[in-house]
């Protein structure tokens, strides 16, 4: 599959609490061709991003929903369930960006990710049978305890929510609030930071980004796409829409595939599923 040039944007305005504003900006972002809407930013969560992501699920069509999850007060059992719900309700468009809260180091964020994955992996993707005829609802051998014990979190499982449609929602890291865990799908670089080898990096767009230079970096495999922070949504979305159409030859995937992972060409690798898939 051809690589897809990813367009991503942070929306962290408190106005996201307002349904009319949220509707117009999120749908505007969807129409502009933005692939990922990061809801909230490190240090700025003037709303609950999980609630906004869930609300946005039926309001939008294709855009990936990336709630920032503060690991200061969230627990993996809750995070894993909310993300599973958002993934189902959005037909496979959920992602997340864990951010360490004040006073917490990035080990907590990495621990949150590992714990949530262990809970998702406690359910095989084909655990549900739902056969009215035989009365079998699920295959008990395909649901198991996680018994996860990390440096910060301990959770037994199983989750009382099914494995997300995408297996695991996309994992996005922000290099300004990093955490170190294997299998990050995308890393948003800091301003001016060089691409990280071996990672799918999103370069922060400054003022009037140089399209040709970005294309060169994309073609060289240094970056997977660009990340904006919406400051003035009306103007920013117009600029991004222009960008998107100028890049149309690298943006076929957006129209095909069903889940966000499929569309962005970021499949879940088998070795990320703890202890392997169920037989």
């Amino acid at each position, binding site marked *: 599959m051809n690589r897809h040039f990813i367009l991503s944007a942070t929306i962290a305005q*408190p106005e996201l*609490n*307002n*349904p009319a504003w*949220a509707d117009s900006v999120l749908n505007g972002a969807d129409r502009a061709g933005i692939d990922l809407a990061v809801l909230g930013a490190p240090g700025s*969560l*003037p*709303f*609950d991003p*999980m*609630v*906004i*992501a*869930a*609300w*946005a*699920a*039926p*309001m939008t069509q294709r855009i990936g929903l990336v709630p920032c999850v503060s690991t200061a*007060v*969230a*627990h993996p*059992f*809750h995070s894993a*369930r*909310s993300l*599973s*719900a*958002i993934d*189902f*309700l*959005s*037909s496979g468009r959920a992602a997340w960006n864990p951010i360490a809260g004040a006073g917490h180091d990035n080990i907590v964020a990495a621990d949150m990710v590992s714990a949530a994955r262990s809970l998702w992996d406690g*359910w095989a993707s084909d655990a*549900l049978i*739902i056969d*009215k005829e035989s*009365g*079998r*609802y*699920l*295959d*008990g051998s395909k*649901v198991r*305890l996680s018994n996860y014990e990390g440096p910060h*979190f*301990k*959770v*037994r*499982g*199983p*989750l*009382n*929510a*099914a494995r997300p449609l995408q297996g695991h929602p996309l994992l996005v890291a922000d290099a300004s609030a990093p955490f170190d865990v294997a299998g990050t799908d995308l890393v948003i670089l800091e301003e001016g930071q060089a691409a990280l080898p071996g990672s799918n990096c999103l370069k922060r767009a400054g003022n009037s980004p140089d399209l040709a230079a970005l294309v060169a970096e994309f073609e060289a495999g240094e970056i997977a796409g660009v990340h904006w922070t919406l400051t003035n949504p009306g103007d920013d979305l117009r600029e991004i829409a222009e960008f998107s159409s100028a890049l149309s030859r690298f943006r076929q995937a957006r129209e095909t595939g069903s889940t966000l992972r499929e569309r962005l060409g970021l499949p879940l690798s088998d070795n990320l599923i703890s202890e392997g898939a169920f037989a």
Partner: protein
Amino acid sequence: MTKQIHLWAFLQGIGHYPSGWRHADATPEAVFSMDYYKSVGQLAERGRFDSIVFGDQLQSRGANGHTPERVAIPTLDPIALLAAMGAVTEHIGLVATVSTTYFEPEAVAERFATLDRITGGRAGWNIVTTAHPASAWNFGQDEMPEKSSRYARAHEFVEAACELWDSAETDGNAVPVQYRGQHITMDATMPGPALPQGRPILVQAGQSPDGRAFAAATAEAIFCPAPTKEDGIAFRNDMHERIAAAGRDPEAVKIMPGLSFILADSEEEAIAKDEAILDLADEALCIEYLGESIGFWLGGHDPKEPIPFDDIVAGTEFPVADITRMLEKPAASGIALGEFASRHVRTPRGHTVFRGTPQQLADRMIDWIDSGACDGFTLQPAYMPGELEIFVDQVVPLLQKAGRLRLDYPGPTLRDTMGIAA
């Protein structure tokens, strides 16, 4: 004016009977898709319900790991679900069950503030303390705190959350809130704007003396079981006394008992329909389900023998007093375990079950209201969405014709709909 009926739709995705999903008109696969929630949310709104309610558990059902096979039904996180349903409905309230035992108040306050704002003031919080001991293991604890300390934390938790909501200023200025209790320490700010409802509607569903005291002090609506009209009257009278003693106006608190129902064109047909659904659950499933709800594995017990009361009381994971209260009478009656389990499954908390015609149900509801048994009902369809459709299409018009149910929503918020001032 004749007393209006408040209606909530308690939408356990799969329906309230463990075998309900096998009914021909049930769509169990659909409960993982937005289309389904959109259609049932709009259906309840068409029926002019006050609110949708989702319960919540913080563990997978499965009698301590013995029997997950048929009762470990996965669900969707209630807040996520209600936020999504809020986007595709306009008026109906959105009541989410959230535990005060396994969350932190600042996170819960922020969650409900966002839900209330993004839905234009339709949020409600069913405050529970979590009953299942297996929940503790999902939060790094070996044991769940005992009930009175869970309720003590719940009091402080709600107080802290309310202070935080009250601190949100319309002009967006955040005032820091410091809360110091025995169970809760919170330093937080709630950036504005103020919530459309000021605070979400506070709902409570506890039965013990501690639970009732908590409800009397905090609740604006109460979800409870009432097996008979007399039980409903006794409960409502008891709560009214407690609410008055707590210095609040009893009439301002809506009592909303659960009501399971099976409807058909005649009473005989409804009974036959009910029996047919119950027959879809074999005895072994019912025993698994009962075992799950009493925290005691019944696998080794003969269904034809009496309820093993002494073994259960000695071995249950739940508070012994609760289990004794639930099983004492049936055990004394000598009913066989299998037979008891087969009846128990449709109403594990002792909610009333109605079988009959839409007209009979409408009459029954009006009679309960006029007798002072309740202010409304938390409807628990046996299977989804078929039974809810029948209710909306056939019972709702009767209630409206009798002048007991609104024809339209009075205002944008759940407080407007329920007639509960902030």
